[in-house]
């Protein structure tokens, strides 16, 4: 691992070099909510000043850049009785994710396990993932962030460089030669002992700021034991089954496929759409049978996939603790509260 430090004004220089020939996606202010607070979103950025590196959390994760909400898996042209199939992985050029928080980097690492390093990698994901350059950025923990409980508060890999704000200067961790070569274009220096001490101080201060926690001890086992628990009914009664939690989740990857024919009958397409296991249509199969017609069972299985099934398969949870689902849930269903209730404490009692 290579570390460097650099003056803050150098970052704009780095951005200008990177954005000269590349598409850059970064957190920006998308609007203001009713109380005047900024709402952040990932967006294509051309000007360094549009980036909000001090952003709290974006409403939607950067997921749509590698798992689009809607994506054509194949298109067909039809001529007389014949057809021709075309497949595109829907990426035109490499792109840079500038300012990804550790939770979102960890989310990518988790998705890689399923979509990249499994028996059947998904080429549509792989093509985008292999053409991504990631600049991680540290963050200030918010009241809803429980990433530390999920072991996702720091990122060990899954980025090209990771920048930490030391106050006066930036501290950068370099993981790839691409990142190293880019950094050669700006003025950086070897960190000294003082920088190391400052880095550790900054990290320790950040750790103090986490207020939300989830007790994950034996969670996979406890979920097994509490499969029939009444708490699921309690949360199911609150759930709107609107699918928002999955749509704002950086790790939810489940999808549906729809085949459509163009109205002129000259073309057809097979479209993948990200889905949510909380919506009514999710477990409906051909013939109309629905395996999970009840809200509380759907909600339960979402938690089982995240905190039990994935743990059994990959020895880690499919939740990074970003808190987006709880923040976006109109019914105020949050992961820390649901897990606490399953463990026998919480507001449903």
């Amino acid at each position, binding site marked *: 691992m290579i570390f460097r430090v650099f003056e803050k004004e150098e970052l704009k220089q780095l951005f200008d070099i990177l954005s000269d020939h590349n598409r850059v996606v970064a957190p920006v202010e*998308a*609007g203001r*909510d*009713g109380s005047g607070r900024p*709402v952040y*979103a990932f967006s294509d950025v051309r000007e360094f000043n549009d980036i909000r590196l001090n952003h709290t959390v974006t*409403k*939607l994760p950067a997921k*749509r850049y590698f798992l689009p*909400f*809607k994506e054509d898996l194949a298109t067909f042209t*039809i001529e007389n*009785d014949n*057809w021709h199939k075309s497949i595109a992985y829907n990426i035109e050029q490499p792109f840079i994710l500038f300012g990804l928080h550790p939770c979102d980097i960890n989310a990518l690492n988790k998705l890689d396990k399923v979509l990249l390093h499994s028996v059947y990698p998904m080429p549509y994901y792989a093509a985008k993932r292999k053409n991504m350059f990631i600049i991680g950025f540290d963050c200030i923990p918010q009241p809803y962030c429980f990433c530390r409980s999920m072991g996702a508060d720091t990122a060990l890999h899954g980025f090209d460089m990771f920048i930490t704000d030391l106050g006066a200067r930036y501290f950068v961790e370099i993981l790839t030669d691409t990142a190293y070569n880019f950094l050669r274009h700006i003025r950086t220096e070897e960190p000294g002992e003082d920088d190391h001490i400052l880095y550790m101080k900054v990290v320790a201060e950040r750790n103090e700021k986490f207020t939300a926690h989830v007790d994950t001890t034996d969670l996979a086992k406890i979920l097994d034991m509490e499969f029939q628990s009444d708490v699921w009914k309690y949360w199911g*009664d*609150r*759930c*709107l*089954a*609107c*699918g*928002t939690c999955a*749509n*704002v989740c950086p790790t939810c990857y489940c999808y549906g496929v729809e085949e*459509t*024919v163009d*109205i*002129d*009958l000259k073309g057809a397409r097979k479209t993948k*759409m*990200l889905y*949510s296991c909380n*919506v*009514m*249509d999710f477990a*409906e199969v051909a013939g109309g049978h629905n395996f999970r*017609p*009840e*809200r509380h069972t759907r909600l339960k299985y979402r938690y089982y996939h995240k905190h039990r099934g994935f743990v059994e398969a990959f020895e880690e949870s499919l939740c990074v603790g970003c808190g987006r689902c709880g923040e*976006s849930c*109109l*019914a105020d269903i949050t992961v820390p509260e649901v897990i606490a209730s399953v463990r026998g404490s919480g507001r449903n009692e």
Partner: protein
Amino acid sequence: MAESRTRTYLGVPLYRPRVAFFEFSSCEGCQLQILNNESTLLDFLSLVEVVNFREAMTERSEDYEIAFVEGSITTEEEIKRLKKIRKNAKTLAAMGSCACFGGVNQLKNRFRNPASAKREVYGSHPVDSGPVRAVEDVVGVDLRIYGCPISKDEVEKIVLHIAIGKSIVVPKYPVCMECKRNENICLFEFGEPCLGPVTRAGCDSWCPSNRAGCWGCRGPAEDVNLRQMRKIMEENGFSEETIIDRLECFGGFLSLMKPERGRHG
């Protein structure tokens, strides 16, 4: 026409139904929606044989297989006409919020004293207008096309699926799914009421994408949690009246909130 009868898709002959469009108490805006999309209109019309469409042609025929019925049913004459259409049609599609739920028209059913309301609007002029009913409250309905107005894309898809023999599927999930796909900021963040979480999707979150809260024109999503929705609206500071006005506006939610009907004097 004989030539187009033998049109095929991947070697399989297309079914080109004779279709008719009818309007009852409505603004006929749904029928106009069908004519709106000029870029696909000819393709659309080539899939069907239109034999009755007052908004588009003068010829009329009683020989049709699919009847698209727009509007709510408010008079005795309409009931008779609708029953005749039902008899003629193999498939009857209720088209738009008025046909599916009574639509905006059914708001008049809220008056406890309809006679006085009628007097207020029409004076002494005699008007044959009874309580508003959805099409399915009068005759059997095979297909519902939701929305106020309907979405042309959805009608095109339905007709196309009939032609090529593919099943017709409408979303059971609510508008929030489409709204998130469109990357909108939730309207509750701006302090605006929205029925997106309980309304059937399929409109591609038309209103919320334009910063206007959903009024539920497509009726309830399936397995809808109306109790929680009302609680959320209340917690967000919206009055009971605001909530009920939205839920009652198009009539789709009435069956889920019956006790409140007729509360207006």
